[in-house]
């Protein structure tokens, strides 16, 4: 069993050798790695890089991580534009200042997440708000135009102003801009034509026809920062995932709480338990065989994005969020201020791993009952995946 770790300064592998988990640098030294994962069909490894100077690059390894090379690069097609709020300009005329959002050329700011569907299908979520899909094993990628041109973000903006209104807002993960980002992609294992994606900030969308059309899946979602808490759009899912063997059980750690769906994201139910510290956070993991079992790494709140009282814990439910148990054994309970990003918690066959922006990596081999500290001095950790 191996853990793939994407960090601000490279890709690390964590493997169990002679009874203990050991991390080692495994590529991309000095480069930001937003996400690293393994294609279950081809066994190739894929990494989403963010070079400080040279832009976002997709990297792949065909030899299990011994060597990496640039993959086919993802680029927005000419004419791809999106609606973005105008930057305030005190020197603007009254007429210009009142115009509202303007059109901005899309250029790749960030590769954020990589997912796999049927054999040969590779999907990449990006900022600003792009879903790029390959159906030839990653040799070529195309921007999903039905999603890019969705009415919720202004319609087709390639040739004109569209409807002029976007309900997709930004994320501070945008590398200096404030654009929306796709951070979650989940292909239904029963039907490779059904994909769920989640957008910060817009909400959850689903296609049932392999990306030809998209519908919002935000019924039951509640936010606490818009005039209408149940608005169709404007939700901020932090991460969305579903159970491999019970794919109708879908989990969402959201900016405004924890949500659970038992009908494939048709409807959501808030299952936060603030009195147990279960409300705000970024990642969520769900058991492959029992979709009612899930894990979170809660933070204190939107206003204090840090552990609660310096104590790090994982929360687990086994009943679809009806009740939550704090799991603390082996985790620091004094002076710990770890923040765990949305892609930095993973599980596989009862083994869990998570990493924090303070470079700490923890592993549990008993479904979270107890934890081992594997590393304390890694670079800030962006993603943790088994592979």
């Amino acid at each position: 069993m191996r853990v793939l770790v994407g960090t601000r300064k490279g890709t690390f592998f964590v493997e169990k050798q002679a009874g203990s988990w050991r991390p080692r640098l495994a590529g991309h030294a000095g480069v930001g790695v937003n996400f690293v994962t393994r294609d279950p069909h081809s066994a190739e490894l894929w990494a989403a890089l963010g070079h400080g100077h040279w832009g976002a690059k997709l990297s792949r390894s065909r030899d299990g991580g011994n060597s990496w090379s640039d993959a086919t690069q993802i680029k927005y097609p000419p004419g791809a534009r999106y609606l973005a709020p105008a930057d305030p300009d005190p020197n603007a005329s009254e007429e210009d200042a009142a115009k509202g959002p303007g059109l901005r050329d899309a250029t790749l700011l960030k590769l954020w997440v990589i997912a796999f569907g049927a054999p040969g299908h590779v999907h990449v979520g990006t900022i600003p708000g792009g879903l790029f899909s390959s159906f030839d094993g990653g040799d070529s990628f195309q921007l999903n135009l039905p999603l890019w041109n969705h009415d919720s973000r202004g319609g087709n903006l390639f040739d004109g102003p569209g409807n002029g209104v976007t309900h997709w807002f930004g994320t501070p993960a945008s590398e200096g801009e404030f654009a929306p980002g796709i951070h979650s992609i989940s292909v239904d294992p029963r039907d490779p034509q059904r994909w769920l994606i989640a957008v910060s900030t817009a909400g959850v969308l689903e296609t049932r026809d392999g990306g030809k059309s998209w519908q919002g899946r935000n019924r039951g979602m509640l936010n606490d920062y818009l005039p209408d808490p149940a608005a169709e759009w404007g939700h901020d899912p932090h991460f969305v995932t579903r159970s491999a063997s019970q794919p109708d059980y879908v989990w969402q750690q959201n900016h405004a709480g924890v949500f659970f769906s038992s009908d494939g994201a048709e409807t959501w139910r808030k299952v936060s338990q603030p009195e147990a510290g279960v409300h705000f956070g970024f990642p969520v993991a769900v058991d492959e065989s029992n979709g009612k079992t899930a894990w979170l790494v809660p933070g204190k709140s939107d206003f204090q994005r840090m552990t609660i009282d310096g104590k790090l814990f994982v929360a687990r439910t086994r009943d679809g969020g009806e009740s939550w148990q704090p799991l603390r054994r082996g985790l620091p309970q004094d002076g710990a201020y770890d923040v765990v990003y949305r892609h930095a918690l993973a599980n596989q066959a009862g083994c869990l791993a998570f990493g924090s922006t303070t470079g700490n990596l923890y592993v549990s081999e008993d479904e979270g009952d107890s934890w081992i500290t594997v590393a304390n001095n890694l670079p800030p950790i962006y993603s943790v995946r088994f592979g």
Partner: protein
Amino acid sequence: MASVEITKHLWEFLPVLRDRTLTVDAKTVAEVVREVERIAPGFTYYICDERGCLRTHVNIFVGQERILDRTRLSDPVDEDSRVLIMQALSGG
């Protein structure tokens, strides 16, 4: 022929550039970039975005002067020019 020197940082990702000072036939910086792309496929997307605009944290000098046109790279180059392509000092 203009001479082109490229930061060692890019040798890591484009090994064909390693230890080479290139000479290219070009009248503008854009033409320099096109010629280097022929030698090192993928080079352009390291220093420019999809639209061909120079990335924020990249600098190009012709002689001692930073180029002016970061959008179309139209700054002139002559056969005696020394063109340097490097990462900008961006801090952090």
